C-alpha cells in the first residue's frame, strides 16, 4: 500500500554543558516551526525540562500528506 502520510521528528536533549545551547536551539526550532506551519505542514514543537537532572529537551515533529 502506498503511504499517504509521512512524519519526521527530531529530539534534542541538553544535559550538563550542552544546557547553554538550549535556548538558541529552541528559538531556531521555533522559527522553523512557524515557517513549516505556514507551508501547510502539521508542526508540533515541544519543550520540556526536568529539574531533577537539569535536563532540557526539545522535540520538533513534522507531518505531511504525501503527494499522490
Amino acid at each position, binding site marked *: *500500500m*502506498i*503511504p*499517504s*502520510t*509521512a*512524519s*519526521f*521528528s*527530531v*529530539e*534534542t*536533549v*541538553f*544535559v550538563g*554543558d*550542552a544546557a547553554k*545551547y538550549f535556548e*538558541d*536551539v529552541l*528559538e*531556531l526550532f521555533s*522559527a*522553523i516551526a*512557524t*515557517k*513549516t506551519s*505556514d*507551508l501547510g*505542514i502539521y508542526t508540533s514543537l515541544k519543550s520540556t525540562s526536568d529539574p531533577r537532572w537539569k535536563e532540557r529537551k526539545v522535540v520538533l515533529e*513534522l507531518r*505531511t500528506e*504525501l*503527494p499522490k
Partner: protein
Amino acid sequence: MRSPRHGGLGVAETFGKFRGLLFSSPSRRCVGVRDIYYALNKAVLRLLEDGSFLLAAEGGETKLRIRSVATGDDVLKAKASGAEALAAKLLLPEAAEAPAKVGVKLINIQDIADPLALVIKELLRGRRPELLTRLFQELLPDAAVRSYSYTEYAGVFDR
C-alpha cells in the same frame, strides 16, 4: 510526478528548476504560487551531497554551512569544505574573530528560515528521512544528544 528515489537530491533538482525561472528568466510572468513564494523570499536553498547548502539569491550563489551554534572549529571546517558562508543562530565568542580571518561570511540564520523551511518540507514530501537527518545533524550542536524518527502511514493507520 517525480519518484521519491531518483538519483541525486530531489530537492536540489526541484529548486534548481525554480531558480532558473526566478533568476534566469525575469521576463517570465506566468509562474505558479510556489514561484511567487520563492520570489518574495529572494533566496533559494539547495541541500548538497556533503550536507552543505547552496544559497541562491539575487547577488549570485554562495556555498553555505548552517549551524545553530557555531564554534571556531565550525568556521574552520566550513572553510575547509569550500563553503564561503556560515549561517548560525549563535556564534560562540571563540568563533567571533575566526570568520574574518579565514574569509568566511557570516549570515543570520533567521534570514534564511524561509528557504530552510521549504527545503525541510520538500524533503519530507519527497520521503527523504536520511537527508532530513543529515540536515538536522548539521544544524544541531554536537554537545546535545540528538535522535530522529521517521514514520509513514497508510490506509487504516492514517491519522
